[in-house]
């Protein structure tokens, strides 16, 4: 350990830290891998909390406790009486808040970002390890603060995760002054954690790449996290400001958003969505990057159009800041502005299309493996296509007038966030689990889990398109009070049953995850025969990652290169002496030492 740490310190010359032991390791370690795992385990816990909230609200939609039977009896035998309308509103508000801020962001950006960035660019840790650890604890505190809302007078925040003012900002309107304040405080603190993480990622990637690791030799997962970090750094402070204004309005009479006292309700929406739309890409870009890597490794082929993929992600990151108005087409903002946002929104669909075509190109001509990671990665591509297509309907300003705020949009963003981000999360867990814990997850259980999740996901979320087109509003505690929605109720019940099955299928994943920690097949250093740097070290990698700082001689995707004895070439493998590296001189590695 000491020699490794020494050589590591010599190479990078940044402040050295020592490996903590025992329980202290999981509480106070500043090692990026431990922090990554802390994020992973905590957000898996939050995943099940958020999923539980979803099942409760689905139950209410299928068997409403508010319903009046045709004979005048109130309620029905299957309803849960404790789900009153206000609690229902809190359920969907907190479901979304938990899933976005405590599950998808921390898993994709927090867990995999922390774990993979130093390993994939060839350095020993993040640039600021202590801030990294602080960011985790601050994030965890934000989650507990938000969930504490369920236990205060008035209950948790119940004005939707979008918290439109003045419903959210005037206590007399929402009836959840404390819960809403806790929500806003949680969002603010959560933002601090994101900002700390984001500048850490950017600094690490810019400054600490191993010799020879040019920007265009970085795996796409690193590129995606790099771009995501910029989005976080630019978008999150705006949300934090909005959250602070909300706290002031609720508790200190500032009236930023209350029109009765001269405030502007639309100001909240502009601030929120200026954050909210880049946020959508924060939630999907890391998924895109990791899926690109997994597709390439398991097709034994280089990523098709590597540079096009990078440029497409940069384009998404840039355009992501000029499309927020498409959430507000029918909010009553300036009508010409709506039209302009309609154009930018259609344009941002182009880079997503490019990425999809390149993913298809990547599997073209491959030697495709059917392991669980790959199945989930391909499901990501397919579900992302459906989610992208339903987005086009809403990007069209006239169609938006009809489908806005119906279940059509609920279907759309679940196809992107569950079908996209969560399938990518599963793919990434199955793929990097052997690196994290030294053992493989069980493939049979993995495939059963994948099949059930894929089937029930589609049975649950696809019919939501239909009930949305049928005119069903989102965020209503009881669709059966509407005569025009009564005929749709069987579909709602079908969706709920599928959601329950989807939820219970995850128990298989949980069992597999924890069982494999001890009983999984030992993975070895490079079980997938992948080329990138994390696979050159032990599983799990030791403290400091690399005994000797690696030198990078080639790009991240040298698969099935003709004339090579193996179908993959590690990034660290020097070119044969008689062969030129085939790269322009500016990309040739600096000789080590």
């Amino acid at each position, binding site marked *: 350990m000491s020699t490794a740490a020494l050589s590591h310190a010599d190479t990078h010359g940044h402040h050295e830290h020592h490996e903590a032991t025992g329980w202290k390791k999981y509480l106070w370690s500043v090692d990026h891998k431990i922090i990554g795992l802390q994020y992973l385990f905590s957000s898996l816990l939050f995943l099940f909390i958020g999923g539980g909230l979803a099942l409760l609200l689905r139950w209410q939609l299928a068997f409403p406790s508010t319903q009046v*039977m*045709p004979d005048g009896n109130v309620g*029905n035998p*299957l309803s849960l009486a404790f789900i*009153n*309308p206000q609690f229902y509103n809190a359920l969907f508000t907190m479901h979304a808040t938990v899933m976005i801020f405590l599950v998808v962001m921390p898993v994709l950006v927090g867990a995999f970002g922390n774990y993979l960035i130093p390993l994939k660019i060839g350095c020993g840790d993040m640039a600021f390890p202590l801030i990294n650890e602080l960011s985790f604890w601050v994030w965890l505190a934000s989650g507990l603060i938000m969930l504490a809302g369920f236990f205060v007078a008035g209950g948790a925040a*119940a*004005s939707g995760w979008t918290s439109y003012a*003045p419903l959210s900002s005037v206590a007399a*309107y929402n009836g959840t002054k404390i819960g809403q304040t806790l929500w806003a405080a949680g969002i603010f603190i959560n933002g601090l954690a994101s900002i700390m993480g984001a500048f850490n990622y950017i600094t690490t990637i810019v400054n600490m790449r191993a010799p020879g690791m040019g920007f265009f030799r970085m795996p796409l997962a690193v590129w995606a996290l790099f771009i995501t970090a910029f989005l976080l750094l630019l978008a999150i402070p705006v949300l934090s400001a909005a959250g602070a204004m909300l706290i002031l309005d609720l508790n200190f009479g500032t009236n930023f958003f209350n*029109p009765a006292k001269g*405030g502007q309700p639309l100001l909240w929406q502009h601030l929120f969505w200026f954050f909210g739309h880049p946020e959508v890409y924060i939630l999907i870009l890391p998924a895109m990057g990791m899926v690109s890597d997994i597709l390439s490794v398991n097709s*034994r082929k280089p990523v*098709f*159009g590597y540079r096009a993929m990078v440029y497409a992600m940069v384009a998404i990151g840039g355009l992501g800041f000029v499309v927020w108005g498409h959430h507000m087409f*029918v909010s*009553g903002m300036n*009508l*010409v502005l709506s*039209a302009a946002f309609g*154009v930018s929104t259609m344009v941002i*669909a*182009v880079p997503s299309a*490019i990425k*999809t*075509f*390149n993913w*298809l*190109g990547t*599997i*073209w*001509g491959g*030697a*495709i493996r059917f392991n669980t990671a790959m199945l989930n990665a391909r499901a990501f591509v*397919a579900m992302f296509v459906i989610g992208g*297509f339903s987005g*086009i309907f809403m990007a*069209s*300003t*006239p*169609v938006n*007038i*009809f489908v806005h705020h*119906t279940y059509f949009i609920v279907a759309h963003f679940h196809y992107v966030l569950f079908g996209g981000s969560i399938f990518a999360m599963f793919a990434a867990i199955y793929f990097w689990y052997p690196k994290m814990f030294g053992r493989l997850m069980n493939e049979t259980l993995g495939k059963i889990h994948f099949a059930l999740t894929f089937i029930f996901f589609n049975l649950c979320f696809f*019919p939501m398109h239909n009930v949305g*087109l*049928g005119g069903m*509003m989102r*965020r*209503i*505690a009881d669709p059966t*009070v*509407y005569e025009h929605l*009564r*005929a749709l*109720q069987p*579909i709602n019940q079908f969706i709920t049953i599928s959601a329950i099955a989807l939820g219970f299928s995850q128990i298989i994943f949980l069992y597999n995850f924890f069982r494999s920690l001890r009983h999984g097949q030992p993975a070895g250093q490079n079980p997938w025969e992948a080329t990138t740097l994390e696979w050159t070290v032990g599983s799990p990698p030791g403290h400091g990652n690399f005994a000797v700082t690696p030198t990078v001689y080639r790009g991240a995707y040298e698969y*099935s*290169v*003709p004339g090579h004895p193996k179908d993959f070439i590690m990034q660290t493998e020097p070119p044969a002496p008689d062969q030129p590296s085939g790269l322009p001189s500016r990309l040739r590695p600096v000789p080590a030492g």
Partner: protein
Amino acid sequence: MSRLCRWMGLWLMGILGLGSSTGWAEIRETGVWWLPRNVSNFGHEIDFIFYVILWLTGITAVLVFGVMIYFIVKYRHRAGVGAIHSHGNNTLEIVWTTIPVFIFLALAIYGNEMWAKMRMETPPTDALQVAIVGEQFGWNLRYPGPDGKLAKMDSQKISKENPFGIDPGDPDGKDDFTTYNDMVVPVGKAVRLHLSSKDVIHSFYVPEFRLYQDMVPGRVYDFVWFKTDAKGHFQLACNQLCGQGHYKMFGKLGVVTQEEYDSWAKGKAPAPATASTASAPQNVSVANR
């Protein structure tokens, strides 16, 4: 237990499409998986663009999924068969960048033309003017009397006592009448809405009109108008989360003949100058627990 059986029976009936209609609004008995019928002028154009996008994305989806499944089967890993070594193809990149650019821009331009027609052109001058002010949790409506003129609304004056924010001395308002959760419009006549809210954001949503518009407190929006082309009984729904009672903030919406409308309007007494609406602000059709 018997209630459970009845519930399951109702559910089955729903699945089989045998539900019966006893309420105010139309209950669809067929086509529950698809769009409800459309009775408004702009609805036809919205549906048209909807179907254009549906065909475009549907065909593309079939192609993409077809190619994907074909690749997965054809290029599955087999012993002794290696993968092709390819880093990509710039011509292809240019092709699949350019084609979507043109398709998406065409969609945006065409959509915005429709948008301008629906929202940015001046509504017909002979339109029936209806003021709608949302509140937690119901709808205040104000109709013009025989003079056909609605009192001028000022969002700054909207209050509990003066839900429409009108000037009590406004002569146009003398014969206006108000209703609560009850909207009636004559078929075939343009209707221009003046939308606002007393407290939080509500929204005016009628799926059969293909129409959604937020009603933001502190503002009066008067750019929304529509013309119906068939009679029917519908529900006016709030589709912007507005608080605890949001889920039951709905009103009756009848599209009737001009004669029926006239006799309905004749039965309504002019509203007192500024007093709040007379009818009880409660949704009596639903038990409130």
